[in-house]
């Protein structure tokens, strides 16, 4: 007999079923519409780091910069570790615990342990940019941190600890507002020199208060004098010499943020690209001897298609169309598209943002960390872009953007175009924070590229790549002998059947971050590599043929 009570129960059952369905939907794994699937695994990694921008309500400009993140294998145990930069309390801000940068050792299986103190890399300066490189060629990666205030060089002792050697190395670079950093072999002599970008000439005394209507907002770079950047030559004995003036680097002032050192004209030496905030970007063209000429304007990178100097933030570098030339993508401010510059060869670039779709979703966001990575191993490089506004009160004066924002994933369709697949790539792309530095590498050594994002004022985001494409891949770790130890600047070409790809080893890239020293190539269905060619910086070419896929391959430079 049907009773009212029975109906109640059935109604509850229905409600419960609906609730369960709702829960199931909420915790469902990745939506399976895209071959790229990124899962947010932050909470299970053991990472407890939380970023501080040192803010106390005064709105100092460096707060918005926040900082970068480094992915590098500090202990040479075969997996990639994470180094987060942190801010420091600014004048007027009180904290109970002094914030420090943090090093997390990768224990495998996406578990990490905080080893900051035992490693001795817990710098308390206001960290902005970072690069890793083996400047003393002793087989382990050292660390350079570009701060507001004195910079820090940590020499890796090879036993899991570092020593602060800034003073003896002579690379503190005074008391400036730093940005991106890079190790680069400027003259191909086999040891790594050091480039440090600077933002603007900021100090507490120079601080400017800005208001939009009634709202106090952060000032912009044009409220301050521009800064020059710094280049240190490695003397080969653990010391460096400041050659900013002699090299031509210091002749140009801007508002540097992200940087990358890349052979932009394929002439065998490494040039320096600097993303300037609200000024034309720089291309410091290397003459091969460590003398640089700034050619940003004529190269087509300084300004976008509309002749506007964008508020450039991060620089992604990669050959998106597999034509053998490294292209550049620069992130920018809200109302500007993150801009893709196609390398035409001969040192010339074209803004191809619109015809490629590489600016999709970026117009309403302030965009920061970025990187090319073949997330689905299909043989072309996709684009990841980290987003988040700099004014935490932006929603009070416009509804066109938000302080917390979802990041953007643009999938390369293989025909020189990108499509925005952010809504189809799993819960990793649902995270809504104010992101800054982003870094990309294979954290669990399973052959696909994972993501680490530094979020301003918040915990980081760790995204595990769960794409199940079945595609093949190879990762290449270089070991220089005559060239610098990790092959920084080396040019690697991989040919598998009809697919020819190239990449270059970079120390420092994206938004004031460091990642990707193990080069990663997706190969699609190709299960054999016909040829790998390495053009070492400083000269020499090595070739390997008939190489097996789906592995990390270490290639040591041949002698002679």
């Amino acid at each position: 007999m049907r009773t009212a009570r029975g109906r109640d129960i059935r109604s509850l059952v229905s409600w419960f079923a609906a609730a369960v369905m709702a829960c199931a939907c909420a915790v469902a794994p990745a939506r399976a519409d895209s071959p790229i699937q990124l899962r947010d695994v932050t909470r299970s990694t053991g990472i407890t780091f939380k970023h501080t921008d040192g803010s106390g309500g005064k709105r100092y400009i460096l707060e918005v910069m926040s900082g970068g993140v480094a992915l590098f294998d500090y202990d040479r145990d075969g997996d990639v570790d994470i180094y987060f930069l942190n801010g420091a309390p600014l004048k007027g801000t009180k904290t109970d615990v002094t914030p420090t940068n943090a090093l997390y050792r990768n224990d495998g299986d996406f578990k990490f342990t905080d080893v900051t103190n035992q490693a001795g890399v817990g710098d308390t300066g206001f960290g902005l940019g970072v690069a890793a490189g083996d400047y003393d060629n002793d087989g382990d990666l050292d660390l350079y941190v570009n701060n507001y205030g004195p910079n820090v060089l940590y020499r890796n002792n090879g036993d899991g600890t570092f020593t602060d050697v800034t003073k003896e190395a002579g690379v503190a670079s005074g008391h400036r507002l730093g940005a991106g950093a890079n190790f680069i072999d400027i003259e191909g002599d086999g040891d790594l020199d050091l480039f440090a970008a600077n933002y603007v000439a900021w100090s507490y005394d120079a601080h400017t208060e800005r208001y939009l209507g009634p709202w106090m907002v952060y000032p912009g770079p044009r409220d301050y004098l521009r800064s020059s950047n710094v280049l240190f030559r490695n003397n080969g004995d653990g010391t460096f010499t400041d050659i900013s003036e002699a090299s031509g680097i210091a002749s140009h002032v801007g508002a540097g943020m992200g940087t990358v050192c890349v052979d932009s004209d394929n002439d065998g030496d490494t040039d320096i690209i600097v993303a300037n905030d609200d000024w034309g970007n720089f291309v410091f063209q290397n003459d091969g001897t460590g003398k640089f000429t700034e050619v940003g304007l004529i190269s087509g990178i300084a300004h976008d298609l509309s002749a506007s100097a964008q508020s450039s933030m991060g620089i992604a570098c990669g050959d998106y169309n597999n034509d053998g030339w490294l292209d550049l993508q620069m992130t920018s401010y809200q109302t500007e598209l993150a801009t893709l510059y196609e390398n035409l060869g001969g040192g010339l670039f074209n803004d191809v943002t619109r015809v490629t779709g590489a600016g999709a979703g970026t117009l309403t966001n302030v965009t920061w960390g970025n990187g090319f990575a073949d997330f689905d191993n299909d043989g072309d490089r996709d684009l990841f872009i980290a987003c988040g506004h700099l004014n935490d009160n932006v929603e009070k004066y416009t509804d066109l953007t938000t302080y917390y924002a979802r990041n953007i994933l643009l999938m390369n369709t293989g025909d020189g175009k990108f499509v925005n697949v952010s809504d189809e790539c799993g819960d990793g792309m649902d995270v809504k924070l104010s992101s800054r530095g982003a870094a990309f590498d294979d954290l669990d050594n399973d052959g696909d590229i994972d993501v680490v994002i530094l979020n301003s004022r918040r915990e980081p985001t760790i995204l595990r790549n769960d794409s199940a494409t079945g595609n093949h891949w190879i990762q290449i770790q270089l070991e220089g002998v005559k060239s610098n130890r990790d092959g920084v600047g080396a040019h690697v070409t991989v040919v598998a059947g009809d697919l020819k790809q190239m990449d270059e080893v970079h120390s420092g890239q994206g938004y004031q971050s460091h990642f990707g020293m193990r080069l990663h190539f997706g190969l699609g269905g190709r299960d054999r590599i016909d040829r790998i060619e390495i053009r070492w910086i400083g000269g020499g070419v090595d070739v390997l043929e008939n190489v097996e896929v789906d592995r990390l391959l270490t290639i040591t430079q041949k002698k002679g």
Partner: protein
Amino acid sequence: MKNPKKSAKHRSTKRPVGAKGGGRGGRRVRLLIAGVIACAAVVVGLVLMLLPNAAEDAQPQGGAEVTSAGQPATDLAMKNETFEVARQLIADFPESAFPIGLMGTVHNQFGNSSKAEKWWLRCLERDPKRADVYEVLAVAYLRKGQYEKVADLLRKAQAIVPNLPGLHRRYAEALMEMGKLDEALAAMEKEVKVAPDFSDNHLVFGKIYLQRKEYEKAVAAYTKALEMRPGDAKCYYGLATASQRLGQSDKAREYMETFSRLRDDDDRISTTRRMTTDQMRRAAPILAETLLDVGRVYNGHRQVLKAEECWKRAAVLDTTNTACRLLLVELYRRARRRQEAVEVAEQLRKIDPKNASYHQVAGVALAEMKRFDAAEVAIRKAIELAPEHPAGYRSLVEVLLLSNRKLPEAKVLAQKAVELAPTAWHYSLLGKACSRNQDHSGALAAMKRAAELAPDNEDIRKAYEKLKETK
């Protein structure tokens, strides 16, 4: 009999925590409730996890939200006043679409594009022929990067006003943003037929050709744009980019040097460029602009006092606003409140002393007060500032004829006006000047030409007939 539903509810809510229930049904209910609670907890937990943007999270870490001292109250009051003014206009003209569109604009200017869109759509429901509203909606979507919507709205605007200058260009730009260069090019071909001499059109052509890697065509487009707007930095940048890709390095370097120089000049004045991109403006100028539009509506409905009130308030709010002052001068002249017209015209001259038209306006107002000397000085200043513009000559002729002095000069000035703009009005003025100088044949010829140019103008026809009769 007890209501079983009520009874069940009563039991479930009144049951103390941990109390045991009796019977299978009760256990099932409790299990279900427990399940639901667990589920709800999961949902709440997930919501909390996914809701990082709680207000307190968005605050600076070591301090409170900061606003400028004394600003919020003033700004808020003006913002409220702006909305009140717009609301009142809707109440006063409930059948009109314009006030509804204006409310959309107000929302948009205060950074609320979503509400703006709703009001604009309501405006279109009221008057679907408002091409301008489709256009502002398109611009709003352009700022959001929703280019398909932009293109759709502009197509609707084009259907209403096919040849409105700028519509095809905006459409082409939306297509270009979507990477549809062929279609963008086709739209631009239509635009140049509507406005062939507008430099921005050729800049867009240049950008399209650069992206198509058709560098020679890009050079031609940028060259044309530069001819129309000499000294434009963007033209030089485009020319440099295209020339470099054509292998013309020397030319490219020259263009780039010019661009750099112009850009550096621009750098010095654009110290707050980022601020303007944030779309936020102070409330006072928004209120002033709103009052300007509201005043126009009242004026259009012959509610002159209300219009005057709006424009006077706008002038107080925005001490550099010339549009409201021009409207006030016109209003006072029509009402023969000549002293007030002169006073406001003098404000215009002070705000922008290099603007010839403000001196001319002041001159005309002074002449109406019969202050001919002062009027002549003002209009001669206008001619000095804009010697190639006929308006100054025309006004001076009128003043000289009205004051009956320097008549030979009036004839010369009238000839100059005709030379610069051979309109019926100017020929008619020349006719009058000739007539006053006893040059009957000159007057007849000029008036004949005026009549030919404006055959429907009754005044000119009568003047011509009268001249013919006085042979």
